[in-house]
């Protein structure tokens, strides 16, 4: 066992703790089970594709598999590690398990080289195994050359392709491989593995520290072990969470929960203090932003998925509970809005020389919908911020203005904003623009008054409009049968399906009720009647009628046999048209004017 701090021979931890048997590969049970069974039963395919995110065990599994199928004395599918074959493969001069890095051998010549060599049988075992790592990097021609090899490989050859990006492989290659998808390793599995490594190396680690390491490695075992390695060189034999956070340059989870709590409360002053603390401690604000976005996203996921967010959210049970508690106080639209604001900021902050100000402004923007009493107040508040930023006054003073007492719903604020703008526009009396947050009763009164006034005005306007319309209104007569003929043509174009049903119908007005039209079908077509009476069809026809006559009708369908006697004899529709003529006249007028100015030959009337 290698001891920490041994200067003689240092191997990176992730290489030292690379699994040697299938049983040591963690988090990929579905793959391992199949491979072990195949080793046992001897049903070895000639091409495998291992894909999945980095650090999930693809190459390690490939190496173990290569050994296992050659091993003379496999132990329940695992390579024994002691037989001649296993030791030969482990040694430098092995000829049977060959690893090729496709990322640096992308060309067609490299593949041809393999093709020429595969006809030779293995030197010690049963199979020669080619492990081609990062196979998606091969060039198109290399893939084509490789395809020929894959089509007819000799019996003693097994290819194992490993890649993080399976979708970059041509489908011809994909369909010739047995594909295994490696999954991200869950937080718990990583923590357990790190714990066992720590124990065997005699290192003391806080559980929270391991949690943080695992969370940061995003399901990659190699990343987590590398990070663990870093921590060991940084702290020696005892690792605390604060050390890990220092290495990562990030704020802890607790800090993020506090920040989000303050965002929810709209407590800008505390938020600014927290940002100040971050800067003081020399943390990177863009890392903080990413953490915060991720935190908000997790809250969103917890809020949506409720009981079972596993698979989307990889956190320990206690953290999940905390998320739940926090999420219960937030609504989804606010979360979405915060995420959007922060994401946008995240993109901009790289180009900005004063990231701190940007972050602070974003916090203000996020908190605004909850705390805004009036536009004036906000302007005031931003002014205070600007002053503070430029003068560097301790931020604590902002708390003099109590922000959290005025939490309101978004609609409230919208109304208030609208109100204050209208006030501004309506009466330019300075006394009226007084901040109203301390006098809610008065404000309400004003609101009512404003509303009443508004309503009164509207009614008046309506009245006037009515009068003028009455004067201008003309009566237009339309032959409903003609209308129906033209509508039928339109129906034929738009809804061929119902046209045959309507072909021999007549449309007639109703003498009793002006708002009813009767659609009369020839006798014995009750079936058609039923079809047209279906909601979407009758609505469609009513819509057409509205479009062409400008009047709203209710459609009633009958067959000739049972027509009600209310049907109007003359089919002339009298329409009291209120706008069309005047518009028409106006248009004529404009046209005439245009002709007068430009001359007739330069004027063309185009209707759109």
């Amino acid at each position, binding site marked *: 066992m290698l001891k920490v701090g041994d200067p003689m021979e240092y191997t990176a931890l992730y290489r030292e703790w690379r699994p040697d048997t299938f049983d040591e590969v963690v988090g990929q049970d*579905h793959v391992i*089970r*199949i*491979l072990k*069974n*195949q080793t046992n*039963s001897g*049903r070895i*395919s000639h091409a495998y594709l291992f*894909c*999945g*995110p980095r650090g999930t065990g693809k190459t390690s599994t490939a190496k173990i598999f290569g050994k296992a199928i050659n091993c003379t004395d496999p132990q329940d599918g695992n390579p024994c590690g002691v037989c001649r074959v296993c030791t030969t493969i482990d040694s430098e001069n092995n000829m049977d398990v060959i690893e090729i890095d496709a990322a640096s051998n992308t060309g067609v010549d490299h593949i041809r080289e393999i093709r020429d060599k595969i006809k030779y049988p293995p030197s010690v075992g049963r199979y020669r195994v080619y492990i081609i790592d990062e196979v998606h990097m091969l060039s198109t021609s290399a893939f084509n050359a490789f395809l*020929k090899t894959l089509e007819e490989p000799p019996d003693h050859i097994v290819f194992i392709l490993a890649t*993080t*990006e*399976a*979708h970059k492989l041509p489908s*011809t290659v994909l*369909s*010739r*491989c*047995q*594909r*295994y*998808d490696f*999954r*991200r390793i869950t937080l718990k599995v990583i923590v357990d593995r790190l714990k066992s490594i720590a124990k065997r190396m005699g290192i003391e680690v806080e559980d929270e520290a391991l949690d943080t390491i695992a969370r940061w490695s995003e*399901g990659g075992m190699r990343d987590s072990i590398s990070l663990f390695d870093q921590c060991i060189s940084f702290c020696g034999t005892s690792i605390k969470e604060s050390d890990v956070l220092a290495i990562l340059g990030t704020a802890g989870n607790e800090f993020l929960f506090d920040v989000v709590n303050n965002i929810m409360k709209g407590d800008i002053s505390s938020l600014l203090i927290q940002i100040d603390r971050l800067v003081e401690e020399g943390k990177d604000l863009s890392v903080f932003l990413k953490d915060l*976005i991720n935190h908000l*996203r997790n809250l*969103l*996921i917890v809020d*949506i*998925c*409720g009981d*079972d*967010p596993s*698979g*989307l959210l990889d956190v320990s049970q206690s953290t999940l509970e905390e998320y739940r508690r926090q999420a219960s106080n937030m609504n*989804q*639209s606010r979360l*979405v809005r915060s*995420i*959007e604001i922060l*994401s*946008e900021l*995240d*993109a901009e902050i790289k180009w900005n020389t004063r990231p701190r100000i940007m972050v602070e402004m974003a916090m203000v923007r996020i908190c605004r919908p909850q705390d805004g009493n009036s536009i004036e107040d906000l302007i005031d508040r931003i002014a205070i911020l600007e002053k503070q930023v430029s003068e560097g006054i301790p931020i604590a003073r902002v708390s003099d203005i109590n922000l959290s007492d005025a939490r309101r719903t978004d609609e409230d604020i919208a109304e208030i904003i609208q109100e204050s703008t209208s006030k501004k526009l309506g009466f330019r009396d300075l006394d009226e623009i007084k901040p109203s947050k301390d006098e809610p009763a008065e404000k309400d009164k004003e609101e009512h008054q404003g509303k009443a006034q508004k309503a009164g005005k509207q009614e008046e306007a309506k009245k006037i409009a009515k009068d003028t319309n009455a004067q201008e209104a003309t009566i237009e007569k339309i032959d409903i049968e003609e209308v129906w003929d033209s509508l039928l043509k339109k129906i034929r174009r*738009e*809804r*061929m*399906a*119902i046209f045959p049903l309507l072909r021999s119908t007549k449309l007639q007005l109703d003498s009793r009720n002006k708002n009813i039209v009767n659609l009369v079908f020839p006798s014995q077509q009750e079936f058609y009647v039923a079809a047209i009476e279906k909601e979407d069809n009758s609505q469609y026809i009513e819509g057409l009628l509205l479009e062409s006559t400008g009047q709203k009708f209710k459609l009633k369908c009958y067959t000739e046999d049972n027509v009600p006697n209310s049907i109007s004899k003359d089919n002339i529709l009298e329409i009291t048209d209120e706008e069309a003529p005047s518009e028409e006249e106006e248009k004529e007028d404009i046209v005439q004017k245009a002709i007068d100015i430009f001359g007739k030959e330069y004027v063309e009337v185009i209707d759109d």
Partner: protein
Amino acid sequence: MDYRKLFREINQGQWQGVYLFFGEEQYIKQQALDQAIDALLDPSFKELNYDQIEGANVDLDTIINACETLPFMSERRLVVLKDLSVFGGKSDGDIDEDGFLEYIKKMSDTTCLILYCRDGVDKRKKVYRYINKTGRAIEFKHISGRELYKWINQKVEEQGKNISYEAMGHIVDRIGNKLEDISNEIKKLVSYVGKRDKIDIQDIDEVVVPTLEESIFQLVDAIGEKKSNRALVVLGNLIYEGGQATPPILAMIARQFRIILQCKGLHEKGYNSATIATKLKQRPFVVRKCLSQGRNFTVEQLKEGLELCLKVDYHIKVGKIQDTLGLELIIVKMCNQ
């Protein structure tokens, strides 16, 4: 000619002249070739009487040489020509098409020539029309329906396991009807269940990774039913487990919305699903699925969805939002409509 008739002919030893194998179903095509080799050639002299030539960069003389060689200790010789350029859509072949056609018309009758194309062929080509007239052009199409289920069942039983009808349907739903893929998955499944005899739906869930298209169907289904949690899980599986890149996912979601919108529009004009399928050049089952998904959306919602996809696509590309997060927000917003 139907490939079933071909298999009968192979087994009866009626086997002569020039054959053309083409079409999308690689598995049966390869099987046909293997059977032909077994039926025609005596294993002990196989090396002497069998030639396989890659069609790219080959000249006519090489082909004629291979075909005119007399068989050794056997009645027939078999020559397989793979992906000959005269059938390709692009006419960048080095072979003189007319010369080749002239040759195969008077080819030695001791040789059997199989022209094996990995993909489809250009059916306007003279060589194709000639071979088609002799009835020896065989197209291998994907099989489906009952025939497919029968095939799967047979494959599973060959390996000493059994499988229910629903489980077979589950496999096809997840990866489609390419026999190569199905065959690979069956091998995995058989190894996965180990000593058990029956392949269950749970085994399939665990082992068979669904295709992108199928996952997108599920995703849009879930959005349509406003089940944001299920939609997020499907998306998470695609990205984290399937290693799928985000741009294709976004494109596929937008595509799905568009197809639903198209289907809905045509349906309202009174077309039935078969007509819509031909009009939109989509497979009928796709149209049927889209029509049923369409019931959960209004036209307005679909349009909003498309606009949202466009907006998020833009935001991802200018770096305003991280890609996965952008996709998740699409789902959340669509479900909150």
